[in-house]
């Protein structure tokens, strides 16, 4: 599978390079190259994940190596939707390199050929729980990126000095809509993801809550994005404050994702 993943990495790197060049030089033709590379990389990556699943016999979202690869895949999928729906190619300037790095780390990381503990491969709740949450993280990453783009531009509009980056970013309305839509999607996925986790947990050992760091962070994240959505829809709360919330929220997401590994607890596997 390594050679396949290597091809995936090459496609993503190519997309990253072309996204950056297109951003710097404002060349539309380069964006087409980037889009095709992304498409090719995504197809190959999907193939690699499916192959992993069959060869290892468990859903390819178990140890850290698999998780990173899966996360990269989810980010590509989400980014592709953003490209299609919002034409926000500027997002690719940071997203594609990040995806490339994730893929690279997944590639060089020693595989941990550990068998999944009993109870993981047998239930359909595990794949659903993890997949939903990975996609929620990807959606929150888009919220974060859109919020940063919003803040950069809002600042320059207020100061009335426009940098070179300013002219290359999508409009305020676009990034605002992007952030709102991604936050709504992310929250939905997070909600269902947490719910499936609770169901699975209660069916396994009769408890829905273990008080471990990952659960606490996930709950805080959920609260934050919920308030973001509620504020946006009821109080017309938008613009800078909402964007800051999108940035802070992603900090919490990172804590949820990595925090558990550092702090230990129930959610540490592999």
């Amino acid at each position, binding site marked *: 599978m390594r050679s396949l993943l290597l091809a995936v990495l090459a496609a993503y790197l190519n997309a990253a390079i072309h996204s950056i060049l297109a951003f710097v030089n404002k060349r539309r033709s380069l964006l087409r190259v980037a889009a095709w590379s992304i498409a090719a990389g995504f197809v190959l990556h999907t193939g690699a994940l499916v192959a992993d699943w069959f060869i290892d016999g468990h859903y390819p979202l178990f140890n850290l190596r698999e998780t990173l690869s899966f996360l990269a895949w989810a980010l590509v999928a989400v980014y592709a939707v953003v490209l299609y729906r919002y034409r926000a190619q500027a997002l690719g300037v940071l997203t594609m390199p990040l995806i490339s790095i994730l893929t690279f780390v997944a590639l060089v990381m020693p595989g941990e050929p550990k068998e999944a503990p009993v109870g993981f491969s047998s239930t359909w709740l595990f794949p659903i729980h993890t997949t939903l949450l990975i996609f929620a993280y990807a959606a929150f990453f888009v919220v974060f990126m859109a919020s940063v783009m919003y803040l950069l531009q809002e600042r320059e509009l207020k100061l009335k000095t426009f940098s070179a980056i300013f002219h290359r970013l999508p409009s*305020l309305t676009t990034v605002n809509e992007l952030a709102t839509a991604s936050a709504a999607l992310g929250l939905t996925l997070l909600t269902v993801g947490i719910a499936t986790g609770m169901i699975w947990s209660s069916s396994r050992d009769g408890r829905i809550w273990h008080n471990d760091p990952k659960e606490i962070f996930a709950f805080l994240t959920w609260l934050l994005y919920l308030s973001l959505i509620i504020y946006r829809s009821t109080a017309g709360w*938008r613009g800078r404050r909402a964007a800051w919330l999108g940035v802070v929220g992603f900090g919490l997401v990172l804590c949820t994702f990595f925090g558990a590994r550092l702090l230990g607890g129930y959610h540490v596997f592999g």
Partner: protein
Amino acid sequence: MRLHRIFTRVLEVNINNGMSIVLVGINHKTAPVEVRELLAFSDEACAEGLRKLVDGDVVREGLIVSTCNRVEILSAMASDQLDTGARRLTDFLDDVRNLPPGFLTKHLYSHTNEEAIRHIFRVASSLDSMVVGEPQVLGQVRHAYSLAVEAGTAGRVLNRLVHHTFRVAKRIRNETGIAANAVSISYMAVELGKKIFDSLKGRAVMLIGAGEMAELSARHLVNAGASRVLIANRTEDAAIRLAQAFNGVPVSFDRLTESLGETDVVICSTGAPDYIVTEKMMRAAVEQRRNRPICVIDISVPRNVDPSVGNVPNVFVFDIDDLESVISSNIREREREAERAELIVQSEVMQFQQSLRAMDIGPTIGALRQKLQELARAEMARQRKRLGPLTTEQEAAIEALLMSTVNKISHPVLNQMRRSYEISDSDTVQALRDIFGLEE
């Protein structure tokens, strides 16, 4: 030997009908407006002038670009009559406007071939314009071309050149940012509006005051898709007149806050000595529009929008100085992009010259003649021994005999080739090439 050299040289002059491109003109950099307006051509004058200039003898093709910033005469002429032709162009300019000879000399520039091609590419791509990247000049070149086509003075060379020019201009527009950012106050409203709202489609615009600049900005905004225009003015007449012009709605000054709440882009230009839009009003308006952003452009001096309005979240205020400074930074950005455009021009000039060369019949004719002459010489070399000792004169006579026979036989063929070429009958040219086994 000498005889045959003279003979072939005469033949060469006759058949080498290579065309040169010559451009003569003045522009805003070389001549003040007093001189430019003397030369400017109306459409009729243009057609008439072209018919006079293009005599089919020296000047074969011609085209006149006449705008308020430039007058350019682009022409194609036989390469061997370059000097006469170039003089013909300058004389024509003196003549047609009854100017004393030499009056234009210090304003006029004259370019030949590569330089002329580069110049017309740069003009059409608006790299030579007062404001780099302005969109009008391409349309003006297009218009000049259609006048030349009507007058029948655009031929084989200029047709190719002008079409290539359009392609270059389009390519530069697409691949560089020379036309990307607004460089006029009136257009800044559209640019800022797009930056904030993405598209102006369906957006509402409010004019406070009825200055000329505000009206022009509103016109641009409406052209960009703004569908609703509100007009607030102290004098009712002006408001009603503008409302009619834009199919808009006059609103009263007393209800300014409510109207602000319904507006996405505000353009303010009244002669009032104090602030008309205050922070308090704007806070109320923003609350009414549930924090949707609002863009306020204040082009009045003294300012009519309190600068503290800019403190309200989601409100973006630009006064005249802000606009000016953004514009000057946009101009700098365009100039940076123009450097990239110059590289494109450079490579396109080379490409065009290549295509011109490929189109030139000269090399084919030369190759054909050379091939036939070589055949004759080879035969001569083979049979030379049989002739025994000859004097130098005798040898020269035989050489001349061979060459003149070859030339006499090939002459009608070459003539036919040239005629077919001139009427763009490339099939016949190719057929002749094939018969004589000429590559390419």
